[in-house]
Protein backbone atom coordinates (compact mmCIF):
# COMPACT_ATOMS: atom_id res chain seq x y z
CA UNK A 1 0.00 0.00 0.00
CA UNK A 2 1.29 3.42 -0.87
CA UNK A 3 1.36 5.85 1.99
CA UNK A 4 0.37 9.21 0.71
CA UNK A 5 0.00 12.37 2.68
CA UNK A 6 -0.36 10.88 6.13
CA UNK A 7 -2.99 8.66 7.63
CA UNK A 8 -5.90 10.94 6.89
CA UNK A 9 -5.67 10.36 3.17
CA UNK A 10 -5.59 6.61 3.63
CA UNK A 11 -8.50 6.87 5.97
CA UNK A 12 -10.48 8.75 3.35
CA UNK A 13 -9.98 6.10 0.69
CA UNK A 14 -11.50 2.75 -0.07
CA UNK A 15 -9.58 -0.42 -0.85
CA UNK A 16 -10.33 -1.86 -4.22
CA UNK A 17 -9.35 -5.32 -5.46
CA UNK A 18 -8.33 -5.84 -9.07
CA UNK A 19 -8.29 -9.30 -10.53
CA UNK A 20 -6.71 -10.28 -13.83
CA UNK A 21 -9.02 -12.44 -15.88
CA UNK A 22 -8.80 -13.93 -19.32
CA UNK A 23 -11.59 -13.34 -21.77
CA UNK A 24 -13.10 -16.76 -21.95
CA UNK A 25 -16.53 -18.15 -21.30
CA UNK A 26 -17.33 -18.96 -17.69
CA UNK A 27 -14.65 -16.76 -16.16
CA UNK A 28 -16.99 -14.15 -14.62
CA UNK A 29 -19.38 -16.84 -13.59
CA UNK A 30 -16.54 -18.64 -11.81
CA UNK A 31 -15.24 -15.59 -9.99
CA UNK A 32 -18.63 -14.33 -8.84
CA UNK A 33 -19.61 -17.83 -7.70
CA UNK A 34 -16.37 -18.03 -5.72
CA UNK A 35 -17.32 -14.81 -3.93
CA UNK A 36 -20.85 -16.01 -3.31
CA UNK A 37 -19.64 -19.28 -1.84
CA UNK A 38 -17.49 -17.30 0.57
CA UNK A 39 -20.36 -15.06 1.55
CA UNK A 40 -18.79 -11.94 0.09
CA UNK A 41 -20.97 -9.11 -1.05
CA UNK A 42 -19.92 -6.97 -3.98
CA UNK A 43 -20.54 -3.30 -3.36
CA UNK A 44 -19.23 -1.96 -6.63
CA UNK A 45 -17.56 -3.38 -9.68
CA UNK A 46 -16.35 -2.61 -13.14
CA UNK A 47 -14.51 -4.43 -15.89
CA UNK A 48 -11.81 -2.98 -18.07
CA UNK A 49 -11.37 -5.25 -21.01
CA UNK A 50 -9.28 -5.80 -24.09
CA UNK A 51 -9.53 -8.50 -26.75
CA UNK A 52 -7.66 -11.08 -24.73
CA UNK A 53 -8.02 -10.18 -21.08
CA UNK A 54 -9.84 -7.99 -18.63
CA UNK A 55 -9.33 -6.50 -15.21
CA UNK A 56 -12.19 -6.98 -12.84
CA UNK A 57 -12.27 -4.24 -10.21
CA UNK A 58 -14.22 -4.89 -7.08
CA UNK A 59 -15.18 -3.18 -3.88
CA UNK A 60 -16.45 -5.71 -1.42
CA UNK A 61 -17.83 -5.79 2.11
CA UNK A 62 -14.80 -7.71 3.42
CA UNK A 63 -11.53 -6.74 1.73
CA UNK A 64 -9.11 -8.94 3.69
CA UNK A 65 -11.18 -12.07 3.33
CA UNK A 66 -11.71 -11.52 -0.38
CA UNK A 67 -7.99 -10.93 -0.93
CA UNK A 68 -7.26 -14.22 0.81
CA UNK A 69 -9.90 -16.07 -1.19
CA UNK A 70 -8.39 -14.80 -4.43
CA UNK A 71 -4.87 -15.66 -3.36
CA UNK A 72 -5.91 -19.12 -2.22
CA UNK A 73 -7.34 -19.65 -5.68
CA UNK A 74 -4.12 -18.65 -7.45
CA UNK A 75 -5.56 -15.53 -8.97
CA UNK A 76 -3.47 -12.50 -9.90
CA UNK A 77 -4.89 -9.86 -7.60
CA UNK A 78 -3.76 -6.47 -6.43
CA UNK A 79 -5.20 -3.78 -4.18
CA UNK A 80 -5.47 -0.11 -4.94
CA UNK A 81 -6.62 2.82 -2.88
CA UNK A 82 -9.43 4.58 -4.65
CA UNK A 83 -11.75 7.40 -3.77
CA UNK A 84 -15.39 6.86 -3.17
CA UNK A 85 -17.42 10.03 -3.38
CA UNK A 86 -21.00 10.51 -2.35
CA UNK A 87 -22.84 12.70 -4.80
CA UNK A 88 -26.26 14.18 -5.04
CA UNK A 89 -28.21 11.97 -7.44
CA UNK A 90 -29.31 14.82 -9.71
CA UNK A 91 -28.20 16.44 -12.96
CA UNK A 92 -24.83 18.14 -12.53
CA UNK A 93 -23.87 16.11 -9.47
CA UNK A 94 -21.00 14.41 -11.27
CA UNK A 95 -20.04 17.49 -13.28
CA UNK A 96 -19.38 19.44 -10.08
CA UNK A 97 -17.05 16.75 -8.77
CA UNK A 98 -15.15 16.53 -12.05
CA UNK A 99 -14.75 20.28 -12.18
CA UNK A 100 -13.37 20.26 -8.67
CA UNK A 101 -10.67 17.78 -9.73
CA UNK A 102 -9.98 19.51 -13.01
CA UNK A 103 -9.25 22.80 -11.21
CA UNK A 104 -6.46 21.03 -9.36
CA UNK A 105 -5.17 19.45 -12.54
CA UNK A 106 -5.94 15.95 -11.31
CA UNK A 107 -6.37 13.18 -13.87
CA UNK A 108 -8.99 10.52 -13.44
CA UNK A 109 -7.56 7.20 -14.56
CA UNK A 110 -10.89 5.44 -14.37
CA UNK A 111 -14.17 5.68 -12.52
CA UNK A 112 -17.37 3.76 -12.13
CA UNK A 113 -20.63 4.02 -10.28
CA UNK A 114 -21.32 2.09 -7.12
CA UNK A 115 -24.22 0.91 -4.92
CA UNK A 116 -26.64 3.64 -5.84
CA UNK A 117 -29.09 4.04 -3.05
CA UNK A 118 -32.69 4.45 -4.06
CA UNK A 119 -33.76 5.81 -0.73
CA UNK A 120 -31.57 8.78 0.09
CA UNK A 121 -31.15 10.31 -3.39
CA UNK A 122 -27.40 10.03 -3.38
CA UNK A 123 -25.08 8.26 -5.79
CA UNK A 124 -21.65 6.85 -5.14
CA UNK A 125 -18.77 7.06 -7.50
CA UNK A 126 -15.48 5.17 -7.36
CA UNK A 127 -12.50 7.04 -8.76
CA UNK A 128 -8.87 6.35 -9.35
CA UNK A 129 -6.81 9.50 -9.70
CA UNK A 130 -3.16 10.24 -10.26
CA UNK A 131 -2.69 12.55 -7.25
CA UNK A 132 -4.57 10.96 -4.43
CA UNK A 133 -3.69 13.38 -1.64
CA UNK A 134 -4.40 16.51 -3.68
CA UNK A 135 -7.68 14.98 -4.77
CA UNK A 136 -8.78 14.23 -1.20
CA UNK A 137 -8.08 17.79 -0.12
CA UNK A 138 -9.72 19.32 -3.18
CA UNK A 139 -12.85 17.24 -2.90
CA UNK A 140 -13.23 17.80 0.82
CA UNK A 141 -12.70 21.53 0.43
CA UNK A 142 -15.20 21.44 -2.41
CA UNK A 143 -17.77 20.06 -0.03
CA UNK A 144 -17.89 16.51 -1.33
CA UNK A 145 -18.41 13.60 0.98
CA UNK A 146 -15.74 10.93 0.74
CA UNK A 147 -16.61 7.52 2.03
CA UNK A 148 -14.05 5.59 4.07
CA UNK A 149 -13.64 1.85 4.31
CA UNK A 150 -15.33 1.84 7.72
CA UNK A 151 -18.27 3.88 6.53
CA UNK A 152 -18.54 1.68 3.48
CA UNK A 153 -19.09 -1.36 5.65
CA UNK A 154 -22.04 0.34 7.30
CA UNK A 155 -23.70 1.41 4.07
Amino acid at each position, binding site marked *: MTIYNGKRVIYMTVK*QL*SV*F*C*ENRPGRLSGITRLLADNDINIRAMSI*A*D*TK*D*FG*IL*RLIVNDFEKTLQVFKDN*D*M*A*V*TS*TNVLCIRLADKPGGLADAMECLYKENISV*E*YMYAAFISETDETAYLVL*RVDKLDTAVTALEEGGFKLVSDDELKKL
Partner: protein
Amino acid sequence: MPERLIWDEAHECMSREEMKKLQSEKLVKQVRHVWDNVPYYRKLMEEKGVTPDDIKSVDDISKLPFLSKADLRDAYPYGLLAKPLSECVRIHSTSGTTGKRVVAFYTQNDVDMWEECTARAITAAGGTKEDVLQVAYGYGLFTGGMGIHGGSHKVGCLTLPMSSGSTERQIQFMQDLGSTILCCTPSYAAYIGETVAEMGIKPEELKLKAGIFGAEPWTEEMRQEIERMLGIKAYDIYGLTESSGPGVAFECCEQNGMHINEDHFLAEIIDPDTGEPLPEGTKGELVFTSLDKEAFPLLRYRTRDVCVLSREKCSCGRTLIKMAKPMGRTDDMLIIKGVNVFPSQIETVLLKMSNATPNYQIVVDRVGTTDTFEILVEVSPDMFSDTVKTFEELQKKISSDIQGMLGIRAKIKLVEPKSIPRSEGKAVRVVDKRKLV
Protein backbone atom coordinates in the same frame (compact mmCIF):
# COMPACT_ATOMS: atom_id res chain seq x y z
CA MET B 1 12.86 -36.56 -65.10
CA PRO B 2 15.34 -33.70 -64.97
CA GLU B 3 18.58 -34.22 -66.82
CA ARG B 4 21.06 -36.16 -64.70
CA LEU B 5 23.77 -33.58 -64.38
CA ILE B 6 26.40 -33.88 -61.71
CA TRP B 7 28.64 -30.99 -60.70
CA ASP B 8 31.62 -32.91 -59.39
CA GLU B 9 31.30 -36.44 -60.67
CA ALA B 10 34.73 -37.45 -59.40
CA HIS B 11 33.65 -36.91 -55.80
CA GLU B 12 29.89 -37.31 -55.96
CA CYS B 13 30.10 -40.69 -57.63
CA MET B 14 33.21 -42.01 -55.91
CA SER B 15 33.32 -45.67 -54.99
CA ARG B 16 32.88 -46.51 -51.34
CA GLU B 17 36.51 -47.62 -50.99
CA GLU B 18 37.91 -44.50 -52.60
CA MET B 19 35.67 -42.29 -50.51
CA LYS B 20 36.72 -43.97 -47.30
CA LYS B 21 40.35 -43.61 -48.26
CA LEU B 22 39.90 -39.93 -49.07
CA GLN B 23 37.98 -39.28 -45.86
CA SER B 24 40.60 -41.08 -43.82
CA GLU B 25 43.46 -39.07 -45.31
CA LYS B 26 41.60 -35.85 -44.71
CA LEU B 27 40.62 -36.81 -41.17
CA VAL B 28 44.19 -37.62 -40.14
CA LYS B 29 45.33 -34.27 -41.49
CA GLN B 30 42.42 -32.40 -39.95
CA VAL B 31 42.89 -33.88 -36.48
CA ARG B 32 46.54 -32.84 -36.59
CA HIS B 33 45.55 -29.32 -37.71
CA VAL B 34 43.08 -28.98 -34.84
CA TRP B 35 45.47 -30.47 -32.29
CA ASP B 36 48.15 -28.00 -33.32
CA ASN B 37 45.95 -24.92 -33.52
CA VAL B 38 42.92 -25.27 -31.24
CA PRO B 39 43.98 -25.58 -27.58
CA TYR B 40 40.33 -25.91 -26.58
CA TYR B 41 39.84 -29.13 -28.54
CA ARG B 42 43.33 -30.38 -27.77
CA LYS B 43 42.42 -30.25 -24.11
CA LEU B 44 39.26 -32.28 -24.78
CA MET B 45 41.39 -34.86 -26.60
CA GLU B 46 43.90 -34.96 -23.79
CA GLU B 47 41.10 -35.50 -21.28
CA LYS B 48 40.01 -38.48 -23.33
CA GLY B 49 43.57 -39.69 -23.64
CA VAL B 50 43.64 -39.38 -27.43
CA THR B 51 46.44 -37.98 -29.56
CA PRO B 52 46.50 -37.43 -33.33
CA ASP B 53 48.58 -40.62 -33.60
CA ASP B 54 45.54 -42.64 -32.52
CA ILE B 55 43.55 -41.49 -35.54
CA LYS B 56 44.61 -43.48 -38.56
CA SER B 57 41.36 -43.73 -40.50
CA VAL B 58 37.67 -42.90 -40.31
CA ASP B 59 37.22 -46.08 -38.29
CA ASP B 60 38.95 -44.29 -35.41
CA ILE B 61 36.52 -41.38 -35.42
CA SER B 62 34.68 -42.54 -32.31
CA LYS B 63 37.88 -42.12 -30.27
CA LEU B 64 37.55 -38.37 -30.66
CA PRO B 65 35.60 -36.24 -28.19
CA PHE B 66 32.36 -34.54 -29.19
CA LEU B 67 31.80 -30.84 -29.57
CA SER B 68 28.45 -29.41 -28.60
CA LYS B 69 26.73 -26.09 -28.80
CA ALA B 70 27.81 -25.54 -25.18
CA ASP B 71 31.44 -25.80 -26.29
CA LEU B 72 30.82 -23.22 -28.98
CA ARG B 73 29.38 -20.96 -26.33
CA ASP B 74 32.30 -21.53 -23.95
CA ALA B 75 34.81 -20.90 -26.70
CA TYR B 76 33.03 -17.84 -28.12
CA PRO B 77 34.22 -16.05 -30.12
CA TYR B 78 37.78 -17.20 -31.00
CA GLY B 79 38.27 -20.35 -28.92
CA LEU B 80 37.72 -22.79 -31.80
CA LEU B 81 39.46 -20.75 -34.44
CA ALA B 82 42.25 -22.71 -36.11
CA LYS B 83 43.71 -20.05 -38.37
CA PRO B 84 45.02 -16.56 -37.69
CA LEU B 85 42.33 -13.93 -38.22
CA SER B 86 44.50 -12.44 -40.94
CA GLU B 87 43.77 -15.54 -43.03
CA CYS B 88 40.03 -15.39 -42.44
CA VAL B 89 37.93 -13.54 -44.96
CA ARG B 90 34.42 -13.77 -43.60
CA ILE B 91 32.17 -14.62 -40.69
CA HIS B 92 28.59 -15.84 -40.51
CA SER B 93 26.47 -16.14 -37.45
CA THR B 94 23.28 -17.69 -36.19
CA SER B 95 20.53 -15.69 -34.57
CA GLY B 96 20.19 -15.67 -30.85
CA THR B 97 21.48 -14.19 -27.68
CA THR B 98 25.17 -13.78 -27.04
CA GLY B 99 24.89 -16.97 -25.03
CA LYS B 100 23.60 -19.05 -27.89
CA ARG B 101 25.11 -17.25 -30.84
CA VAL B 102 27.46 -19.16 -33.07
CA VAL B 103 30.05 -17.23 -34.99
CA ALA B 104 31.79 -19.21 -37.72
CA PHE B 105 34.94 -18.09 -39.51
CA TYR B 106 35.89 -18.80 -43.10
CA THR B 107 39.16 -18.65 -45.00
CA GLN B 108 38.97 -18.17 -48.76
CA ASN B 109 39.41 -21.95 -49.14
CA ASP B 110 36.51 -22.51 -46.75
CA VAL B 111 34.29 -20.21 -48.79
CA ASP B 112 35.35 -21.99 -51.99
CA MET B 113 34.60 -25.42 -50.52
CA TRP B 114 31.20 -24.24 -49.28
CA GLU B 115 30.34 -22.77 -52.66
CA GLU B 116 31.38 -26.04 -54.33
CA CYS B 117 28.84 -27.75 -52.07
CA THR B 118 26.02 -25.37 -53.00
CA ALA B 119 27.04 -25.66 -56.66
CA ARG B 120 26.47 -29.41 -56.35
CA ALA B 121 23.03 -28.74 -54.87
CA ILE B 122 22.09 -26.31 -57.63
CA THR B 123 23.24 -28.74 -60.30
CA ALA B 124 21.33 -31.57 -58.66
CA ALA B 125 18.22 -29.40 -58.90
CA GLY B 126 18.82 -29.10 -62.63
CA GLY B 127 20.71 -25.80 -62.59
CA THR B 128 23.19 -24.94 -65.37
CA LYS B 129 24.82 -21.79 -66.70
CA GLU B 130 21.67 -21.24 -68.76
CA ASP B 131 19.61 -20.67 -65.62
CA VAL B 132 18.46 -17.50 -63.89
CA LEU B 133 18.71 -18.16 -60.17
CA GLN B 134 16.79 -15.95 -57.78
CA VAL B 135 18.18 -15.93 -54.24
CA ALA B 136 15.38 -14.98 -51.86
CA TYR B 137 17.19 -16.18 -48.77
CA GLY B 138 18.25 -13.40 -46.46
CA TYR B 139 21.72 -12.01 -47.12
CA GLY B 140 23.93 -11.00 -44.25
CA LEU B 141 25.11 -12.94 -41.23
CA PHE B 142 22.60 -15.68 -42.09
CA THR B 143 24.34 -18.26 -44.27
CA GLY B 144 21.43 -18.83 -46.67
CA GLY B 145 21.85 -15.91 -49.02
CA MET B 146 25.62 -15.80 -49.43
CA GLY B 147 26.00 -19.59 -49.55
CA ILE B 148 23.62 -20.17 -52.44
CA HIS B 149 24.81 -17.00 -54.11
CA GLY B 150 28.38 -18.30 -54.27
CA GLY B 151 27.34 -21.68 -55.62
CA SER B 152 25.18 -20.00 -58.22
CA HIS B 153 28.22 -18.05 -59.45
CA LYS B 154 30.25 -21.24 -59.67
CA VAL B 155 27.59 -22.93 -61.76
CA GLY B 156 27.42 -19.80 -63.87
CA CYS B 157 23.74 -19.04 -63.37
CA LEU B 158 22.62 -15.45 -63.82
CA THR B 159 22.25 -14.70 -60.13
CA LEU B 160 19.56 -12.38 -58.74
CA PRO B 161 20.63 -11.42 -55.20
CA MET B 162 17.14 -10.41 -54.08
CA SER B 163 17.38 -11.32 -50.38
CA SER B 164 14.07 -12.01 -48.67
CA GLY B 165 11.02 -9.76 -48.55
CA SER B 166 9.32 -7.38 -51.00
CA THR B 167 7.36 -10.30 -52.37
CA GLU B 168 5.63 -8.47 -55.19
CA ARG B 169 8.96 -7.19 -56.41
CA GLN B 170 10.33 -10.75 -56.24
CA ILE B 171 7.50 -11.88 -58.47
CA GLN B 172 7.95 -8.97 -60.82
CA PHE B 173 11.64 -9.86 -61.28
CA MET B 174 10.63 -13.46 -61.79
CA GLN B 175 8.36 -12.37 -64.62
CA ASP B 176 10.58 -9.71 -66.16
CA LEU B 177 13.90 -11.59 -65.98
CA GLY B 178 12.55 -15.09 -66.37
CA SER B 179 13.92 -16.63 -63.19
CA THR B 180 14.13 -20.40 -63.53
CA ILE B 181 15.32 -21.40 -60.05
CA LEU B 182 14.13 -19.98 -56.76
CA CYS B 183 16.10 -20.39 -53.53
CA CYS B 184 14.62 -19.46 -50.16
CA THR B 185 13.06 -20.96 -47.05
CA PRO B 186 10.14 -23.30 -47.81
CA SER B 187 7.73 -21.09 -45.90
CA TYR B 188 8.76 -18.10 -47.97
CA ALA B 189 8.41 -20.15 -51.15
CA ALA B 190 4.88 -21.01 -50.09
CA TYR B 191 4.17 -17.37 -49.37
CA ILE B 192 5.50 -16.39 -52.79
CA GLY B 193 3.25 -19.08 -54.25
CA GLU B 194 0.21 -17.67 -52.48
CA THR B 195 1.07 -14.15 -53.60
CA VAL B 196 1.50 -15.32 -57.20
CA ALA B 197 -2.04 -16.70 -57.06
CA GLU B 198 -3.38 -13.52 -55.45
CA MET B 199 -1.81 -11.44 -58.20
CA GLY B 200 -3.73 -13.53 -60.71
CA ILE B 201 -0.59 -15.05 -62.24
CA LYS B 202 -0.75 -18.66 -63.38
CA PRO B 203 2.27 -20.88 -62.59
CA GLU B 204 2.75 -21.58 -66.30
CA GLU B 205 3.23 -17.86 -66.92
CA LEU B 206 6.43 -18.06 -64.87
CA LYS B 207 9.60 -19.68 -66.18
CA LEU B 208 10.43 -21.25 -62.82
CA LYS B 209 11.35 -24.91 -63.05
CA ALA B 210 12.95 -25.68 -59.70
CA GLY B 211 13.36 -24.45 -56.17
CA ILE B 212 15.98 -25.19 -53.51
CA PHE B 213 14.47 -24.69 -50.10
CA GLY B 214 16.03 -25.13 -46.69
CA ALA B 215 16.87 -23.66 -43.27
CA GLU B 216 13.67 -24.91 -41.71
CA PRO B 217 11.73 -28.15 -41.46
CA TRP B 218 9.05 -28.82 -44.04
CA THR B 219 6.84 -31.70 -44.87
CA GLU B 220 6.16 -33.74 -47.98
CA GLU B 221 2.70 -32.13 -48.15
CA MET B 222 4.30 -28.70 -48.14
CA ARG B 223 6.59 -29.77 -50.96
CA GLN B 224 3.64 -30.84 -53.09
CA GLU B 225 1.80 -27.62 -52.28
CA ILE B 226 4.78 -25.46 -53.29
CA GLU B 227 5.35 -27.53 -56.44
CA ARG B 228 1.72 -27.10 -57.41
CA MET B 229 1.56 -23.37 -56.65
CA LEU B 230 4.75 -22.48 -58.51
CA GLY B 231 4.78 -25.22 -61.11
CA ILE B 232 8.25 -26.39 -60.08
CA LYS B 233 10.22 -29.27 -58.60
CA ALA B 234 11.09 -28.41 -55.00
CA TYR B 235 14.36 -29.70 -53.53
CA ASP B 236 15.47 -29.76 -49.92
CA ILE B 237 18.89 -28.59 -48.79
CA TYR B 238 20.51 -29.05 -45.37
CA GLY B 239 23.24 -27.26 -43.53
CA LEU B 240 24.20 -25.48 -40.39
CA THR B 241 26.27 -22.42 -39.68
CA GLU B 242 28.59 -24.51 -37.50
CA SER B 243 29.62 -26.59 -40.50
CA SER B 244 29.50 -23.80 -43.12
CA GLY B 245 25.86 -23.26 -44.09
CA PRO B 246 23.41 -24.77 -46.58
CA GLY B 247 24.95 -27.39 -48.83
CA VAL B 248 26.15 -29.92 -46.28
CA ALA B 249 23.51 -32.15 -47.88
CA PHE B 250 21.14 -31.72 -50.81
CA GLU B 251 18.41 -33.52 -52.67
CA CYS B 252 18.76 -34.97 -56.12
CA CYS B 253 16.13 -35.75 -58.75
CA GLU B 254 14.85 -38.61 -56.60
CA GLN B 255 13.62 -36.09 -54.02
CA ASN B 256 14.01 -38.76 -51.42
CA GLY B 257 16.66 -37.95 -48.83
CA MET B 258 19.63 -35.62 -49.10
CA HIS B 259 23.09 -36.61 -50.30
CA ILE B 260 25.70 -35.57 -47.78
CA ASN B 261 28.84 -34.04 -49.26
CA GLU B 262 30.77 -36.62 -47.34
CA ASP B 263 34.10 -35.86 -48.95
CA HIS B 264 33.89 -32.63 -46.90
CA PHE B 265 31.62 -33.60 -44.03
CA LEU B 266 31.92 -36.95 -42.31
CA ALA B 267 28.56 -37.96 -40.90
CA GLU B 268 27.87 -40.28 -37.99
CA ILE B 269 24.73 -41.29 -36.17
CA ILE B 270 25.03 -41.66 -32.41
CA ASP B 271 22.81 -42.55 -29.51
CA PRO B 272 22.01 -39.12 -28.04
CA ASP B 273 22.02 -40.49 -24.49
CA THR B 274 25.16 -42.61 -24.48
CA GLY B 275 27.11 -41.01 -27.30
CA GLU B 276 27.77 -44.46 -28.76
CA PRO B 277 27.88 -44.71 -32.56
CA LEU B 278 24.86 -46.45 -34.06
CA PRO B 279 24.89 -48.66 -37.15
CA GLU B 280 23.87 -47.20 -40.48
CA GLY B 281 20.13 -47.16 -40.97
CA THR B 282 19.43 -46.58 -37.28
CA LYS B 283 17.68 -43.44 -36.08
CA GLY B 284 19.84 -41.26 -33.88
CA GLU B 285 21.60 -37.94 -33.53
CA LEU B 286 23.52 -36.65 -36.51
CA VAL B 287 27.17 -35.75 -35.85
CA PHE B 288 29.40 -33.99 -38.35
CA THR B 289 33.14 -33.71 -38.69
CA SER B 290 34.42 -31.03 -41.05
CA LEU B 291 37.16 -32.68 -43.06
CA ASP B 292 38.33 -29.64 -44.98
CA LYS B 293 37.44 -26.52 -43.07
CA GLU B 294 40.52 -24.53 -42.17
CA ALA B 295 39.32 -21.67 -40.00
CA PHE B 296 36.54 -23.31 -38.02
CA PRO B 297 37.10 -27.06 -38.22
CA LEU B 298 34.60 -28.71 -35.91
CA LEU B 299 35.31 -32.35 -35.12
CA ARG B 300 32.38 -34.56 -34.09
CA TYR B 301 29.94 -31.70 -33.75
CA ARG B 302 26.60 -32.79 -32.33
CA THR B 303 23.89 -31.24 -34.48
CA ARG B 304 21.04 -32.30 -32.16
CA ASP B 305 19.11 -33.22 -35.31
CA VAL B 306 17.65 -36.70 -35.21
CA CYS B 307 17.81 -38.57 -38.50
CA VAL B 308 18.69 -41.74 -40.37
CA LEU B 309 21.50 -42.31 -42.86
CA SER B 310 21.18 -44.61 -45.81
CA ARG B 311 23.67 -45.92 -48.31
CA GLU B 312 21.17 -47.43 -50.69
CA LYS B 313 22.04 -47.02 -54.35
CA CYS B 314 20.51 -43.84 -55.74
CA SER B 315 19.11 -43.66 -59.26
CA CYS B 316 20.77 -40.27 -59.78
CA GLY B 317 24.16 -41.98 -59.92
CA ARG B 318 25.60 -40.29 -56.86
CA THR B 319 27.21 -42.56 -54.31
CA LEU B 320 27.19 -39.97 -51.54
CA ILE B 321 25.46 -41.24 -48.41
CA LYS B 322 21.92 -39.96 -47.94
CA MET B 323 20.29 -38.49 -44.85
CA ALA B 324 16.55 -38.50 -44.29
CA LYS B 325 14.82 -35.23 -43.43
CA PRO B 326 15.59 -34.54 -39.75
CA MET B 327 12.84 -36.10 -37.65
CA GLY B 328 13.22 -33.96 -34.59
CA ARG B 329 15.73 -32.62 -32.11
CA THR B 330 17.47 -34.03 -29.09
CA ASP B 331 17.40 -30.61 -27.43
CA ASP B 332 14.60 -28.11 -27.01
CA MET B 333 15.43 -26.00 -30.04
CA LEU B 334 12.51 -25.03 -32.25
CA ILE B 335 12.74 -23.73 -35.77
CA ILE B 336 10.07 -21.09 -36.25
CA LYS B 337 9.82 -19.21 -39.53
CA GLY B 338 13.34 -20.42 -40.29
CA VAL B 339 14.76 -19.01 -37.07
CA ASN B 340 16.32 -21.16 -34.35
CA VAL B 341 14.48 -20.55 -31.10
CA PHE B 342 15.45 -21.89 -27.70
CA PRO B 343 12.94 -21.62 -24.85
CA SER B 344 15.77 -20.25 -22.70
CA GLN B 345 15.83 -17.17 -24.92
CA ILE B 346 12.19 -16.51 -24.15
CA GLU B 347 13.02 -16.97 -20.48
CA THR B 348 15.75 -14.34 -20.71
CA VAL B 349 13.27 -11.81 -22.05
CA LEU B 350 10.61 -12.64 -19.48
CA LEU B 351 13.05 -12.52 -16.61
CA LYS B 352 13.52 -8.83 -17.31
CA MET B 353 9.80 -8.23 -16.81
CA SER B 354 9.47 -9.81 -13.42
CA ASN B 355 11.47 -10.75 -10.34
CA ALA B 356 10.92 -14.43 -10.90
CA THR B 357 10.64 -16.14 -14.26
CA PRO B 358 6.98 -16.18 -15.06
CA ASN B 359 5.46 -19.37 -16.28
CA TYR B 360 5.14 -19.34 -19.99
CA GLN B 361 4.31 -21.56 -22.91
CA ILE B 362 5.39 -21.35 -26.51
CA VAL B 363 2.67 -22.38 -28.94
CA VAL B 364 3.75 -22.99 -32.50
CA ASP B 365 1.36 -23.89 -35.25
CA ARG B 366 1.23 -23.71 -38.97
CA VAL B 367 -1.66 -21.95 -40.63
CA GLY B 368 -1.57 -22.79 -44.31
CA THR B 369 2.14 -22.74 -44.92
CA THR B 370 3.11 -20.04 -42.43
CA ASP B 371 4.30 -20.68 -38.89
CA THR B 372 2.42 -18.97 -36.10
CA PHE B 373 4.31 -18.15 -32.93
CA GLU B 374 2.47 -17.36 -29.74
CA ILE B 375 3.76 -17.05 -26.21
CA LEU B 376 1.39 -17.42 -23.29
CA VAL B 377 2.67 -15.66 -20.18
CA GLU B 378 1.13 -16.19 -16.79
CA VAL B 379 0.51 -12.91 -15.02
CA SER B 380 2.21 -12.92 -11.65
CA PRO B 381 1.23 -10.64 -8.77
CA ASP B 382 4.49 -8.71 -8.98
CA MET B 383 3.84 -7.70 -12.57
CA PHE B 384 0.28 -6.83 -11.75
CA SER B 385 -1.26 -3.44 -11.95
CA ASP B 386 -4.88 -2.51 -12.05
CA THR B 387 -4.80 -0.62 -15.32
CA VAL B 388 -5.22 -2.10 -18.77
CA LYS B 389 -2.59 0.26 -20.13
CA THR B 390 0.13 -1.27 -17.95
CA PHE B 391 -0.70 -4.74 -19.24
CA GLU B 392 -0.78 -3.59 -22.81
CA GLU B 393 2.60 -1.94 -22.37
CA LEU B 394 3.91 -5.14 -20.84
CA GLN B 395 2.64 -7.12 -23.82
CA LYS B 396 4.26 -4.66 -26.20
CA LYS B 397 7.54 -4.69 -24.30
CA ILE B 398 7.76 -8.49 -24.30
CA SER B 399 6.84 -8.57 -27.97
CA SER B 400 9.46 -6.04 -29.01
CA ASP B 401 12.16 -7.65 -26.85
CA ILE B 402 11.41 -11.03 -28.42
CA GLN B 403 11.58 -9.51 -31.87
CA GLY B 404 14.83 -7.77 -30.96
CA MET B 405 16.34 -11.04 -29.84
CA LEU B 406 15.03 -13.45 -32.46
CA GLY B 407 14.16 -11.21 -35.38
CA ILE B 408 10.67 -12.67 -35.59
CA ARG B 409 7.43 -11.47 -34.11
CA ALA B 410 5.55 -13.40 -31.48
CA LYS B 411 2.00 -12.86 -30.34
CA ILE B 412 2.05 -12.36 -26.58
CA LYS B 413 -0.97 -13.52 -24.67
CA LEU B 414 -1.26 -12.80 -20.97
CA VAL B 415 -3.03 -15.53 -19.07
CA GLU B 416 -4.12 -16.16 -15.51
CA PRO B 417 -1.76 -17.70 -12.96
CA LYS B 418 -1.62 -21.49 -12.98
CA SER B 419 -3.59 -21.64 -16.20
CA ILE B 420 -0.74 -23.18 -18.22
CA PRO B 421 -1.03 -26.95 -17.99
CA ARG B 422 1.62 -28.62 -15.90
CA SER B 423 2.98 -32.05 -16.28
CA GLU B 424 4.43 -33.49 -13.10
CA GLY B 425 4.40 -30.02 -11.60
CA LYS B 426 6.48 -28.54 -14.41
CA ALA B 427 4.82 -26.22 -16.86
CA VAL B 428 4.75 -27.55 -20.40
CA ARG B 429 7.03 -25.09 -22.16
CA VAL B 430 6.46 -25.91 -25.77
CA VAL B 431 3.40 -26.95 -27.70
CA ASP B 432 4.27 -27.57 -31.32
CA LYS B 433 1.12 -28.26 -33.26
CA ARG B 434 2.89 -28.38 -36.62
CA LYS B 435 3.02 -31.84 -38.05
CA LEU B 436 6.53 -31.78 -39.40
CA VAL B 437 7.49 -35.41 -39.29
